[in-house]
């Protein structure tokens, strides 16, 4: 496979509480022959707190990073965190749409941004650039016990004019990637509902209530775990799951795993290499049964053709 390289902006959480997202992204891209290069001396994108102060100010905090990427001669920057992605994309869009806004932002920066960078999510790169076929080609191991609810969170594909990826109401990219990697994916009604976002610290009860609705729907979908692409969703649903059970009187015990950790498992990485030991609700019991992927796919084919034969036999009888 040809070596590909992307400029990759991790964002602050992936250095800390979401370190396992970082570990699994690096593992998966490495398996796919893709090198990720960090922009030198990147800073925080500003996230929600900055845009509650002022849009020029928030634009400058994000655009400082876009200017660094631009100076590296790249045209694309990849990030995993939807909040970073939204901040980078909004800053770019507003600057590209208005010369006055652009001038105001650049006035706050040492190094101006010239609007030459497209920010994309790691999910988008895997789905569109790498493609399902290449993602499927690296798979070695199947996990027949897992049934995954794909949870995208509120801003991964919304608003569509800004995020420019997948459907704003029924996104499917994560579903398709997991299926390509040999996982069973459930139909999930709460794909884009909000988990409570960044209010976990100041408004714990509100976040616990909203997250409990998402977890409830995971079970309702017949799934036994959830896949996420946002570290805030992961934190609210997993780290706070005991809090949810205490405040809401529930008894959830649902592993909530980054989609890149699932891909990494399918590629044969050990759970600890993907940071699966770092979650609150462990997934161990659901991944103890494994099977070589070829054998698993053959079984699925056979089950399918048996079903087909049965259906045909029924047709004949009728």
């Amino acid at each position, binding site marked *: 496979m040809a070596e590909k390289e992307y400029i990759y902006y991790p964002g*602050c*959480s992936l*250095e*800390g*509480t*979401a*370190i396992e997202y970082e570990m699994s992204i690096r593992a998966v891209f490495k398996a796919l022959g893709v090198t990720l290069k960090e922009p030198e*001396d*990147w*800073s*925080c994108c*500003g*996230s*929600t*707190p*900055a*845009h*509650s*102060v*002022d*849009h*020029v*100010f928030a634009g*400058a*905090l994000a655009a*400082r990073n876009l200017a660094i990427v631009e100076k590296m001669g790249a045209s694309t920057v990849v990030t995993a965190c939807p909040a970073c992605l939204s901040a980078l994309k909004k800053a770019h869009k507003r600057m590209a749409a208005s010369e006055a806004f652009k001038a105001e932002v650049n*006035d*706050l*920066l*040492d190094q101006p941004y010239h609007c030459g960078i497209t920010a994309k999510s790691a999910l988008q790169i895997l789905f569109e650039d790498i493609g399902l076929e290449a993602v499927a080609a690296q798979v070695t191991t199947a996990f027949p016990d897992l049934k995954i609810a794909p949870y995208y969170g*509120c*801003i991964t594909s*919304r*608003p*569509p004019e800004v995020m420019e990826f997948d459907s*704003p*109401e029924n996104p499917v990219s994560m579903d398709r990637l997991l299926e390509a990697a040999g996982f069973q994916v459930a139909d999930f009604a709460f794909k*884009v*509902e*909000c988990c*409570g*976002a*960044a*209010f*976990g*610290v*100041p*408004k*714990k009860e*509100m976040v616990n209530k*909203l997250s409990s609705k998402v977890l409830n729907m995971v079970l309702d979908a017949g799934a036994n775990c959830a896949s996420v692409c946002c570290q805030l969703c992961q934190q609210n649903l997993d*780290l*706070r799951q*005991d*809090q949810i059970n205490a405040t809401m009187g529930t008894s959830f015990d649902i592993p909530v795993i980054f989609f890149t950790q699932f891909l990494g498992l399918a590629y044969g990485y050990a759970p600890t290499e993907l940071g699966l*030991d*770092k979650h*609150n609700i462990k997934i161990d019991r659901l991944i103890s049964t494994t099977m070589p992927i070829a054998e698993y796919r053959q079984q699925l084919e056979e089950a399918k053709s048996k079903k087909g034969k049965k259906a045909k036999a029924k047709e004949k009888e009728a």
Partner: protein
Amino acid sequence: MDPINLTDQVDHAFVEQVKKESGEDPYLCYQCGNCTAGCPYTEFFDYPVSQVMRLLQAGQKDTILTSHSVWLCATCETCTTRCPCEIDIAHIMDVLRIIARREGYVAEKDIKLFYDSFLNSLQRHGRVFEMGILMGYNLRSLNLFADADLGPKVLGKGKIHFAPTEIKGKKQVAKIFKKFQEKRSNRG
């Protein structure tokens, strides 16, 4: 909602200010309620988002800026995505929150305090230092043990750093804060 006297209680200048700062036209809203129907936060809001839009059309500055709704909105973008009039409602809520902060209306002190702790960390280090934000928030909100139950779940997993990551360009980041504050105070 109480009756509003539209003869002498309409702040037209406020409507114009929101229009200018957001670039959106609130008068396009015909009160279909689609935003409120999808809003995950509506059960916590004192005024549902469609009512905030109506209050805005009627220039009800004080009612809007003292509301909890403008602070409890998480910018999940559901309203913006579903508005049939293509109004960027989440952006209007953002602008209302910005104006509320600027003019000293803070109905949700803990949320503002959390945002301030975050920005304080960013200003000092160039990247946010998660442990520092929580400590800063807990001290200033006098809620010393907020989320202390989560401590044992993250310790020893390499998730929590006890010292901030200092970047080389932290002075450049601090300069963004400084220049922005200077510009704002010059404008008055």
